[in-house]
């Protein structure tokens, strides 16, 4: 792999940037792999990378029906934070946060991780009590966090309407300074390039059409490019996980919903942090390009159409204008939807299944992007050892029958 550096940039400038090496190969599928990852989004690519790097398993295929990072990896609002309430999820998201902090160096790819902080705004007394509880829990888990009052919020975000005259006055917020945003496409591309360099085969335009299961053991997958064998298969297919599970004869506690987001026309720098509000329901940040990145809530109905209903977007923009009257005349540039697989307790499923050798990493719902490195890291360890990593273990699918749920509806960014 050709390393990226400032010196390399200068060197390639001399040849008009025409001789850059391709970022990854386009291999033909082998007959057999040690591990197959189904799904070439951020989580799948990260899993492949950590399998190769940390566990020495390089005979790995990532099978993607479209192109790399073309699903929810490319559709999220790029927010990274780890201020979750319960110990299990705090451990998982904080593990991811620590990996984020060294990621660009680790994979030699600038993922533009910017720790500009995240505010979770409270508008009612109950909001503030929940925020205090969550921040206290975070600090006990070694995660940075502060409770701010309305003045503290106003100092950080001068353009926000923190007056008493607002319809839903801002009473305060939780503040995680280490949180921030990252360039979502670069995360997928960076992991893909680094995994490819270690020998992982990235098979694009390859659709899994079925699983080869004999005597309760996985033996590989059927694809539109022929059968590919493996005794270990990890399925990381986000919104499509319910469909994939059904192919393997497994029922999942998942419902796939459309989740919408939108960006405005680019404007000059005006918002240097991330603001989220569960109560009026909207979240917003400004990208390095200058556009305002705005996330909506999920549409309540099941959908695989990668589009949602207009009232959902309208509701979100009402909330944004309520908090930021100054944005009332900003024009929106693009709007889109992704399919999120939501779990009843707003926590992911990282689990073995009743089929030996078949693992699922799904159910991230509305908040999977922030966990990309951590999810890939613990999932890779689980696939490599055949035993769930201690951080992943509580997220077993069994919890829906044992009752050991991890209820993160309060700390999830989007109500669902």
């Amino acid at each position, binding site marked *: 792999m050709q390393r990226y550096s400032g010196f390399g940039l200068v060197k390639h400038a001399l040849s008009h940037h025409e001789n850059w090496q391709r970022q990854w190969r386009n291999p033909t599928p082998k007959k057999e792999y040690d591990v197959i990852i189904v799904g070439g989004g951020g989580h799948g690519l990260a899993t492949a990378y950590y399998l190769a790097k940390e566990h020495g398993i390089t005979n790995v295929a990532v099978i993607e029906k479209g192109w790399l990072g073309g699903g929810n990896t490319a559709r999220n609002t790029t927010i990274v934070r780890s201020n979750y309430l319960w110990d299990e999820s705090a451990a998982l998201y904080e593990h991811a946060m620590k990996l984020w902090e060294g990621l660009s160096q680790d994979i030699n790819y600038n993922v533009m991780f910017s720790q500009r902080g995240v505010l979770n705004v409270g508008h009612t007394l109950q909001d503030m009590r929940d925020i205090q509880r969550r921040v206290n829990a975070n600090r006990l888990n070694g995660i940075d966090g502060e409770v701010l009052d309305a003045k503290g919020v106003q100092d950080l975000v001068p353009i926000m309407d923190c007056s008493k005259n607002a319809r839903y006055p801002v009473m305060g917020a939780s503040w995680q300074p280490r949180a921030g945003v990252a360039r979502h496409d670069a995360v997928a591309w960076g992991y893909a390039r680094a995994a490819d360099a270690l020998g992982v085969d990235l098979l694009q335009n390859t659709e899994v059409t079925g699983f080869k299961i004999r005597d309760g053991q996985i033996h590989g997958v059927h694809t539109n490019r022929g059968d590919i064998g493996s005794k270990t298969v990890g399925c990381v297919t986000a919104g499509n996980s319910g469909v994939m599970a059904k192919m393997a004869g497994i029922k999942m506690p998942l419902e796939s919903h459309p989740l919408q987001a939108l960006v405005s026309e680019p404007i000059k720098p005006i918002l240097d942090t991330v603001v989220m509000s569960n109560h009026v329901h909207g979240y917003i940040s400004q990208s390095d390009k200058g556009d305002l990145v705005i996330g909506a809530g999920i549409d309540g109905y099941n959908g695989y159409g990668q589009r949602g209903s207009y009232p959902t977007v309208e509701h979100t923009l009402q909330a944004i204008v309520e908090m930021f009257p100054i944005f009332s005349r900003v024009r929106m540039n693009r709007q889109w939807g992704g399919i999120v697989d939501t779990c009843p307790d707003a926590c992911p499923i990282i689990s073995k299944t009743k089929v030996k050798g078949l693992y699922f990493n799904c159910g991230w719902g509305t908040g999977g992007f922030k966990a990309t490195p951590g999810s890939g890291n613990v999932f890779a360890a689980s696939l490599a050892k055949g035993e769930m990593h201690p951080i992943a273990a509580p997220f077993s699918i069994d919890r829906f*029958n044992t009752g050991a749920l991890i209820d993160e509806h309060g700390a999830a960014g989007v109500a669902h």
Partner: protein
Amino acid sequence: MFYILCPYCGEHREEEEFHPKGQAHIARPADPENTSDDEWGDYLFFRDNPRGVHHELWVHAVGCRKFFNITRHTVSYEILEVYKMGEQPSITAESLASAEKSQGVQVGDGGQQTVGASDSAAKDSRGTKV
């Protein structure tokens, strides 16, 4: 954006009057005290999540406030059928598949449509409203 026929009001109304309430036809276990953890967990949490025809429970929240069922396609979002509580769907994934085999695709009985789809159904609705 959906334009939904409430089977109780008999009128097409915009989606914002309604709330989706998840999968329809989920029967509560008859004897909850003697239900195993597996059965109870399945009843509470495990759902069909089909890419295709889906039967859903909806409520006309700011209308008559009654619950009813919708059969809808989860990719095209087309509403195929609306029926009252206690009734069974006449359109299912299986019935559609066999209809498709015997002839060209012919679904729905008109009248329920998403906005943006053909407007012949919308015309029907204007007829029925009066």
